[in-house]
C-alpha cells in the first residue's frame, strides 16, 4: 500500500499515511462516482452560452472574411478546424453559428412544449367531447413522421429560421403532448386529488394546486432533452437546404455547404457534425440529471 503513494506529492502521501487504506479506497471510489459527465456538460453549456452571447471573445478570425489562397486547408495552428472553400476559418464560423443554432433549437423546443402543453392539457382536462377530439387529433399527428410535418410547413411558407422553429416545434409536439396527457391523467386519478375532492375544494382549485404542478414537474427535464433533439432536427432541415440560407454559419447550413467537399475536405462535415452531437449530448446529460434529481426529490 505504501508504494502507491510514492508518485503523488508529499502532502498527499502524508494524508494517505494518516488515513487507513480502506477509507482511502472508499474516497477514491466516491471520487470516481462523481457525475463527471454532468460537470463536463455544464462546462460545455457555459462555453456555448458565451459563444452565443459574445462570439468575438472566442473566435480567432472574422467568420466572413474571404481568403481564397487559404481555401480548403486542413486543421492547423492558425485555423484550428481548417478552412472552407472560400478560405474562411471554420472554427470562427462554428463559434459565430452558435447563436442562431441555439436560438433555433431553444425556440423549436419552446414552441413544441407550449403546443404540447396546450394539446395535452386539453386532451386530459377538457369536457368529454372536446377532449376526445383533441385526443384523436394528437394521435393523428403522432402517426405522421415528424419530419414530414416539418417539410409540409416549410413547403407552405418557404424556408427561413422562423419557419424552421415552427416546423420542428410542430414535429416534436405530438409526442410530448401524449406524455403530458398521461401525466395529467395519472395525477387526476391520484389519491391526493381524491382527498382534495373530499375536502370540498373546487375543481379549479384542484387543477391548479395539485394536478398541473404535479403533472408538469417533469417537464423541466423534458425541455432540456427536447432542446438537444430540436437542434439535431433543425440541422437536418438546414442540411437539406430547407432551413437558414448561406452565408449564415448555422451548423446545419455549414453541413450543407461542406457536403460538396466531403472527399477533399472531410473536416467541413465532421467538425460541425461533432459540434451538433456534443450539444445534443450536453442537453441530454443535463436533462437526465435534472430528471433523476426530480425523481429523487419525490421520494
Amino acid at each position: 500500500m505504501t508504494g502507491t503513494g510514492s508518485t503523488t506529492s508529499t502532502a498527499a502521501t502524508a494524508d494517505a499515511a494518516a488515513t487507513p487504506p480502506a477509507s482511502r479506497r472508499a474516497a477514491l471510489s466516491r471520487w470516481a462516482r462523481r457525475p463527471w459527465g454532468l460537470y463536463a456538460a455544464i462546462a460545455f453549456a457555459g462555453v456555448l452560452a458565451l459563444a452565443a452571447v459574445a462570439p468575438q471573445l472566442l473566435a480567432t478570425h472574422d467568420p466572413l472574411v474571404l481568403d481564397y489562397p487559404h481555401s480548403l486547408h486542413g486543421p492547423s495552428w492558425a485555423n484550428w478546424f481548417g478552412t472552407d472553400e472560400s478560405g474562411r476559418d471554420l472554427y470562427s464560423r462554428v463559434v459565430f453559428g452558435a447563436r442562431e443554432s441555439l436560438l433555433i433549437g431553444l425556440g423549436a423546443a419552446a414552441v413544441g412544449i407550449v403546443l404540447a402543453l396546450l394539446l395535452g392539457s386539453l386532451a386530459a382536462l377538457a369536457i368529454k367531447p372536446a377532449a376526445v377530439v383533441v385526443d384523436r387529433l394528437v394521435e393523428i399527428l403522432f402517426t405522421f413522421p415528424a419530419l414530414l410535418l416539418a417539410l409540409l410547413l416549410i413547403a407552405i411558407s418557404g424556408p427561413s429560421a422562423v419557419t424552421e422553429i415552427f416546423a420542428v416545434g410542430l414535429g416534436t409536439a405530438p409526442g410530448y403532448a401524449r406524455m403530458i396527457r398521461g401525466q395529467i391523467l395519472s395525477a387526476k386519478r391520484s389519491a391526493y386529488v381524491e382527498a382534495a375532492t373530499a375536502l370540498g375544494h373546487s375543481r379549479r382549485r384542484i387543477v391548479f394546486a395539485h394536478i398541473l404542478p404535479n403533472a408538469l414537474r417533469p417537464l423541466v427535464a423534458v425541455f432540456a432533452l427536447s432542446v438537444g433533439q430540436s437542434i439535431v432536427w433543425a440541422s437536418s432541415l438546414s442540411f437539406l437546404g430547407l432551413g437558414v440560407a448561406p452565408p449564415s454559419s448555422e451548423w446545419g447550413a455549414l453541413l450543407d455547404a461542406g457536403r460538396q467537399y466531403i472527399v477533399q475536405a472531410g473536416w467541413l462535415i465532421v467538425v460541425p457534425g461533432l459540434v451538433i452531437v456534443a450539444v445534443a449530448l450536453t442537453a441530454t446529460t443535463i436533462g437526465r440529471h435534472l430528471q433523476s434529481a426530480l425523481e429523487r426529490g419525490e421520494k
Partner: protein
Amino acid sequence: MSAPRLKVENLRVAFTVGGRRREVVGGVSFELASGECVAIVGESGSGKSVTARALVGLAGRTARVDADVLEIHAAEVRGFTARQWQRLRGLEVGFILQDALVSLDPLRRVGAEIGEALRLHRWGTRASRASRVIELLTRVGVPRASARARQRPDQLSGGLRQRALIASAIALDPDIVIADEPTTALDVTVQAQVLSELEAMKRRGASLILISHDLSVVAQLADQILVMRAGEVLEQGSAAQVLCAPAHEYTRALIEAVPTEHTRGSRLSPVPVPEAALGAPAPAPTSAQAGPVLEARALSKSFRTPDGGITRAVDDVSFDLGAGETLGIVGESGSGKSTTARLVLGLESLDSGTVRLLGQDWSGIPERARRPLRRRISVVSQDPLSSFDPRWNVERILVDAVPRSEYRSTAARKARAVELLGFVGLGPEVLPRFPHGLSGGQRQRVAIARALAPRPSLIVLDEAVSALDVTVQAQILDLLVAVQASSGVSYLFISHDLGVIGHLSDRMLVMKDGVVVETGEPAEIFGNPQHPYTRELIASIPEFDPAAIAARK
C-alpha cells in the same frame, strides 16, 4: 435427544451503508429441534426478517453476518460459499416468502415454478417431477391441483398463490422451513387455511421458523418465541411462558395492544393519549338536526369486469349512523366495504339508493351542490402517504384543509394547523416536514388532523390502521376513541380486522360479496353469530388460548 436441526449462537448482522457500519441484529441465539416451531416476533425494523435471511445465507452482499455457532444438521455453515448455500437451500431448508404475488414469476405457470426447485436439485425425471408437483399442490390443499398447475399466478387467488409458494418451498421435503410473514395481507379465512397447512407440516416432522408481527398468528404454532425490537432479543422462552406470563414490558405492551371485542372501552397502549385530543372541539353546529348523521338506503353499485361480466360490488346496503356513534363495516377483500365507503363519501356515483347526510340529500345532488356540505364528512384512508400531495409539507397540507371562510387570515389558518397537530399528539416541529420523511404512525396522525380540520360531523376511516405496527395501531385507536369522546364526531370504520371492529364499534355490519349478511352490536355478533359466513369469520380469528398453548407443550 439427537442434535438440534439448527443451532445458532450470538448471531449478529451488520450492514455497511455509506462507509458506516450499522448493526441491525445483535446476538440472536436459539436451537431448533425436529417438529418444533421457533417464532421470531417483532414490529417493522426489529430485524426479524434479516435474522431469518442470515440463517440461510440470504442476508445480501452488503451484510456482514457473524455468529459464534451457526450449525445446520450439526454442520458448521459459517464459511459457506454461495454455491454451498444454494445446495443447502431447497434441499435442507425451505424458505416461504411473504407476498406471493411478487414472489412468483408472473409469466410462468405455477407447476413450472414449483418444478424448478426440483430441477435445480436434479430431482427425478421430467415426468416424475410433473407428478411430484401435482402431489405437492394437493398436499398443501390446492383443489384440482393438475388444472391449477397449468395456470399462471394472476389466475390464482391470494390464498392459492401463498399455498403454491409453500409447495415450492417444501418441494424437496426440507427438514427446516422458514416462513417470513406467511399470512400477512391474506384474508382471515385464508389465513386460517394457511396456518393449518403449516401446522400439518409441523406434525409431519418439519421444523419451522416463523417470522411474524402478529402475536395471535404466532400463538397458533410456536413452541418457542423470541421477541425482537431494534435488532435486540428482548425476551425469549417457551410459547406458554412468553404469551401467558411475559416478563418484558414490551412483550406485555405487544400483547395488550391487540384489539378484540373484549378490549372495548379500555386503552390499548401504555402511551398516554395527548392531552389536547381530549379538547378536540365538537362538530360545527348545523341547522336543525336530530336524526341520524348519515342515512344510507338500499345502496347498489355494479362494475364491469375486464372480461365483460358485471360484478355487483355493493348490493342493497342500508344503514343509519347516529351522532357520536361508531359503525363498523367488516369484510374480506372484495366484499364491497371500500366501495360502500366511497359511495357514502360521494366519490363514486350510485346505481340506485340514496344517501342522506345530516338529514339533507347528499347522493342525489350534483358535485357542485355537494361541496359546501363536504366539510361535514371527512376521510382517512389506509395509505395516508398517497393521499398527500407529494410536493407539500405538513404545514401546507393542513393549512389547505382549514376552511378559509372560518379562518380568514393565513396566520389564523397556520395557528389552526398547529392546534390540529396538538389534537393528534404532534408538535409544531412537524410542520415543515414532508410526509415521506415521517413514520407510518405520524403520517396517519397527520391524516387524522387533516380530517378534523373542517370540524366534520362524520369521519369515514377506510382501513385506517391496517398498515400500522400493532403498538402504533394501539396508539391510533386510543387517539380515535379520545377524539370521539371529546368531540362527539361519528365514525364509519371500515376494516378487514374483526378485532379492530370489535374494539371500536357501537354497531357493526358484516359484508360478503356486496351484501350485508349480518348486523348488530359486536357483543351479539361475536357471542352469537347467526349467519354461517359470520361464524366462519369468527372461527378463523386466531386467538391466544393459554390452555391450548400449554397443552401443546
